[in-house]
């Protein structure tokens, strides 16, 4: 049984909590009301509502846009796997020591510099219209080239994330592994990389969320994804609502991942702070 002093403190804290919940609910409501009044009260609201928020158009366009979104999801899954593998390869190459690997190291470094600098949309055009022109691979769908372009660009970012993670593992961990007789490769695979992965998971998930949006760009190559489907529906209905539908669907797709990322990084931070007390 807690003491009276403690019971008093707990009661006080409960009152405090209740009050702050009430205050935040109220302020949210007031802000939302103000925004709604400003929006609806604006002179052009009726026209905007008609062209962007038409429920009938939304319902009519939904099936096609959803079908398009399914293509985005497929591209996203394949591209994510591709990015993880290629980025890991790039990051590992950049950690190789020894003069033999100099050309490989330089190549990997040049690659990441280049592809972090070029806008994704330009990579899309170059890959989507350039490589097929070589007549090397036979005919491939636009989504295929879009996936390749995404992998090329995002691997450059993600390999840097991996590299930062590898460097964040305390050097004495590698020393301890080597002192046991593990080779460079064994020390990397068994000791350094697993710890690096843990450290970079939140950053990786952030890049994943960014890519979730950027898969919409494959529409510029003519792939009928959610964005392209929305475009088709828009010109069919002479109404922009399908874009809003597609936008909302992208948000819904990304939302669980965004929450998970936030939760994970908060947890990591909490753990690190707890760890630093020991």
């Amino acid at each position, binding site marked *: 049984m807690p003491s009276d002093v403690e019971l008093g403190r707990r009661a006080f804290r409960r009152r405090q909590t209740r009050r702050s919940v009430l205050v935040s609910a109220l302020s949210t409501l007031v802000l939302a009301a103000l925004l709604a009044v400003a929006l609806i009260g604006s002179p052009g609201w009726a026209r905007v509502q008609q062209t962007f928020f038409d429920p009938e158009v939304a319902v009519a366009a939904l099936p096609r846009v959803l079908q398009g979104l399914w293509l985005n999801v497929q591209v996203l899954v394949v591209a994510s796997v591709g990015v993880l593998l290629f980025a890991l390869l790039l990051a590992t190459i950049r950690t190789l020591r020894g003069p033999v690997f100099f050309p490989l190291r330089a190549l990997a470094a040049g690659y990441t510099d280049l592809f972090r600098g070029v806008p994704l949309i330009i990579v899309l055009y170059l890959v989507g219209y350039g490589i097929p022109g070589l007549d090397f691979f036979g005919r491939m769908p636009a989504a295929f080239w879009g996936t390749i372009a995404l992998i090329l660009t995002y691997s450059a970012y993600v390999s840097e994330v991996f590299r930062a993670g590898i460097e964040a593992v*305390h050097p*004495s*961990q590698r*020393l*301890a*592994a*080597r*002192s*046991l*007789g*593990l*080779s460079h490769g*064994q020390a990397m695979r*068994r*000791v350094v990389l*697993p*710890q690096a992965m*843990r450290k970079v998971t939140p950053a990786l998930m952030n890049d994943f969320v960014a890519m979730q949006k950027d898969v919409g760009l494959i529409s510029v190559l003519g792939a009928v994804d959610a964005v392209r489907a929305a475009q088709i529906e828009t010109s069919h209905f002479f109404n922009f609502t399908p874009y809003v539908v597609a936008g909302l669907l992208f948000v819904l797709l990304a939302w669980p991942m965004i929450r998970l990322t936030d939760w994970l990084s908060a947890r990591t931070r909490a753990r690190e702070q707890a*760890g630093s007390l020991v």
Partner: protein
Amino acid sequence: MNASPAGLETPPVLRLRGIRRAFGDHEVLRGIDLDVAAHEVVALVGASGSGKSTLLRTVNLLERIDDGVILLAGEDVSDPRTDADRVRGRIGVVFQAYNLFPHLSVLDNVTLASRLVHRIPRAEAERRALGLLGSIGLGDFARSFPDRLSGGQQQRAAIVRAIATDPELLLLDEVTSALDPELVGEVLELVRALAARGTTIVMATHEMAFARDVADRVVFLDAGRIIEDAPAREFFAAPREARSREFLSRFLPEA
């Protein structure tokens, strides 16, 4: 190279001749000669920065040398053609801190080198590791991750990991100096037990009382040179060199 005084048949476990190492123009090791016989326990003492850690890393080939020869059981391992991984597999090392791998269970930590380097089947490596962990009271922690263990338990697990592959030589680098004072004892007890079992040990330490009790010999290092190399009892009772006396007076005020 001369044979050891005992004769050709038993070269010392470790023989160092003229080891030199500089970082830039800072000479950290200035010609180290040292022999360590089988079952011998050698305490490496000296002020912070005198080169103890560098010397231990050198023996384990984690540090390049600028000159000198390192013989491990008579084999020249300082030859550049040496397979360094194989040599490291023959030597156990425990550092001051950050020894255990935080993403592996204690058991996996202990068996990692057996499985990967010495190609011992997992079941056998684990049976052996569980025996060792049990013998020092860590059996219940075998499946735990290192962050569940106290600092003293972690260092003891690290020592068990270092001896799990039956190394010819065990190197300990101030294994207690990152620990809270009340955890030092249990780690020293384990080292004492290993010494009693005949493990060949070279340990850098600031625990002078422990060195006096457990070490056969004390090697006093000062600015990268061996100033005095004497039986432990003699070194603590009547150090020959003025610098040894000065060093000891800082650690053992009563001496």
